[in-house]
């Protein structure tokens, strides 16, 4: 079932649906959030960045965990498809991690009066970005594809074990230096007219991620399976 050919054909059928739904979702979530929700009574209109910031931050973490798990599967059971998936996920996750950081900083300026505070969540996100960049750099540095995949698998699994420890220690570090930072006030409950577009936005960002991930993965499959007859047939070349 998990043969590359089967996956390629199946994902090809899903692709337009995922892409279309992602496009509709992203537009709905963002336009709703930007135009139709009332402003926050504390933060005014700046809170509208949330419809961008929260989905990216959530994706950044989810993508790293999925990356590490699929790299681990590829490492242990030697499944090529899982290796390729891990390779494709790294740039996507890194870009959303960077977006979460930048939007967090932009949001911080009107809210806290400064672009950057060493808030626990921002700091953890920064470290996560470093983990992503390390993975990408390691993959670029190794020429052999297989060795690169296995090396990245080891590194991402070590990173996965470390993420909860990093998260815990950064949270704790932040409470220790309470005086120097401003606590992010988090409303106990969000009003439904803000929550619904946020949920739509999160869902749509995940779909978008799946969409671009599938495009990347399909390219990798074609490139990896170039010697097989089905790829040659698809490319219209007689072998």
């Amino acid at each position, binding site marked *: 079932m998990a043969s590359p050919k089967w996956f390629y054909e199946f994902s090809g059928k899903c692709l337009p649906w995922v892409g279309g739904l992602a496009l509709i979702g*992203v537009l709905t979530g*963002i336009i709703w959030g*930007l*135009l*139709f*929700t*009332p*402003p926050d009574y504390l933060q*005014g*209109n*700046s809170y*509208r*960045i949330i419809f*961008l*910031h929260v989905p*990216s931050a959530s994706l950044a973490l989810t993508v790293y965990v999925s990356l590490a798990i699929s790299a681990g599967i590829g490492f242990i059971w030697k499944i090529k498809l899982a290796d390729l998936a891990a390779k494709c996920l790294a*740039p*996507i996750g890194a*870009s*959303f991690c*960077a*977006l979460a950081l*930048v*939007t967090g900083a*932009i*949001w911080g*300026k*009107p809210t806290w009066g400064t672009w950057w505070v060493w808030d626990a969540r921002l700091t953890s996100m920064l470290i996560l970005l470093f983990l992503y960049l390390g993975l990408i750099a390691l993959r670029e540095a190794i020429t052999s594809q297989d060795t690169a995949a296995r090396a990245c698998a080891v590194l991402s699994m070590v990173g996965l074990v470390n993420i909860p420890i990093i998260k815990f220690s950064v949270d704790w570090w932040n409470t220790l230096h309470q005086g120097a930072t401003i606590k992010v006030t988090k409303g106990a409950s969000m009003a439904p007219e803000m929550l619904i577009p946020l949920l739509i936005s999160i869902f749509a960002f995940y779909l*978008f*991620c799946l969409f*671009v991930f599938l*495009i*990347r993965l*399909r*390219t990798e499959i*074609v*490139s990896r399976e*170039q010697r097989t007859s089905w*790829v*040659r047939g698809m*490319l*219209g*070349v*007689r*072998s």
Partner: protein
Amino acid sequence: MYFEDLNSLISMGGHGPYVWGAYLLGFIVLGWNLVSPILHRKKTIAELRRQLRREGRL
């Protein structure tokens, strides 16, 4: 719509530059995520076609 006119939508009560700046960056990231794999795919397939054709000629 929450905003009454275009001006209040753009200024967002003084937070306009932050909000619109963030969304601009957001669209750049989404756009890059969409365009770069498509370009990469086109390039890879074109290269493979060329390579396979060369091999077919041998």
